[in-house]
């Protein structure tokens, strides 16, 4: 067990002033808690279990990411795999992620997923996930980790070898790009950050550059 401290950044510019009140809805909390398999023991001790609507706490900030992942498509509640990832991203993530845990972390990582036979499949979120990125980027990270939970690791160190590999980086890029293009109920800042982050990933995380930006 580790103890950690975190400084709460500006709530407007992280998107938590906008999304925080949205998750303060018991029906949504009931659903998300079950769909992403949260457990009380992983989210108490200051992580927000006892104050789920406190948008300075990790649980609220995680639920904001899930809210963004769930409701940003203009076609909600349709979740067809025949459409783009903004539409089906939440469907995929809630089915792929086995459990979602809060941890202090270390070494600066944002999130971590382990999977495989004889492994306790899980996804852990760390301090920089909640306090180092805005709401739309948190949603994108969930898509990335869900792709790992689905059994697809990276095949070139921390990178994917190519766009054709169809790995976690491509999925994250696609979700961010579609969010920037047609995301609903959001802000100029969230959309612009999503587009820029998508391009940063395209430009840094493929061994063979895909040759385009969005």
């Amino acid at each position, binding site marked *: 067990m*580790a*103890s*950690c*401290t*975190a*400084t*709460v950044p*500006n709530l407007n*510019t992280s*998107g938590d002033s*906008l999304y925080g009140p949205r998750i*303060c*809805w018991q*029906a949504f*909390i*009931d659903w998300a*808690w*079950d*769909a992403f398999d949260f457990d*009380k*023991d992983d989210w*108490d*001790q*200051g992580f927000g279990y*006892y*104050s*789920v*609507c*406190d948008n*300075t706490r990790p*649980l609220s900030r995680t639920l904001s990411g899930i809210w963004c992942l769930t409701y940003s498509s203009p076609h909600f509640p349709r979740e067809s795999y*025949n459409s783009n*990832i903004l539409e089906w991203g939440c469907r995929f993530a*809630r089915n792929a992620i086995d459990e979602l845990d*809060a941890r202090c*972390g270390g070494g*600066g990582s944002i*999130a*971590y*997923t382990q999977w*495989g036979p004889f492994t306790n499949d899980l996804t852990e979120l760390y301090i*920089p996930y909640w306090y180092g*990125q805005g709401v739309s980027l948190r949603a994108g990270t969930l898509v*990335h980790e869900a792709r790992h939970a689905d059994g697809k*690791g*990276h095949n070139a160190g921390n990178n994917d070898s190519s766009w054709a590999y169809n790995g976690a980086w491509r999925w994250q*890029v*696609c979700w961010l790009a579609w969010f920037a293009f047609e995301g609903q109920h959001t*802000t*100029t*800042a969230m959309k*612009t950050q999503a587009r*820029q982050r998508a391009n*940063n990933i395209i*430009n840094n995380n493929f061994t063979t*550059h895909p*040759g*385009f*930006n*969005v």
Partner: protein
Amino acid sequence: MTDSLELVHPDPVVLKTPTHWLIDQAFAALNGEGERAAVAYKHTAELLKTRKDAAETLLRVAQSSPAEDIGRRWCAYYIVGDIGDKAAAEPLYRAAASALPEHGKDGKCGETRGCEGPRDGEVLVRTMAVEALQRVAERHEEARGYVLELITAQPDRAILIEAVKAARALGLSEEAAKRLNKDDRWMLDIKMVPVQEVMAEPERADDSVLGHMPPGRGVKQDVPAAECCCTPNREG
């Protein structure tokens, strides 16, 4: 037994001058939803343009904010770009060219430890600084040299590509090519594609598992309650 977390709430920012107050309004509008927020942002940015100390104050906000407050730093650069003060070009260049923190020590991601880290937030802030520099250079020809200087500075690849894109948008492709290493000239050929060409292959069909039903179904016994308000409170 799980980890425990203690939060530090910084002191509220003191809005010392009318410019600080306007910047605070711009932050709120830029991060608000809908047409009203968009109009409010536009008006606030117009008012900021009339204040001589606006760009300088915003740059100070960006530089004095805690490193981990990525959103605040990013928004400050965004607004600097909209104000378009030519005096901001050199500080934006320096921000974009500044060294990135080292990669995390966790090693390989996915199977072992995380793929993303705080360095990615720093890349995002510098990306915004490049876009802001481009917007300043669109208004002031004398600022264009800083875009080319950034290419010469050979920053991290993601930042270099943003600088190359900015140069191209400003009609400076030839000058950019001269400054790029031979191995990097492919960056000038990066296409801007419509989002319809950016698709993930889901590798599953619609008859695959739908999963838990949407919100509104069932009442769980072991979930946190939504009864408290959104003001911060302590949890130990």
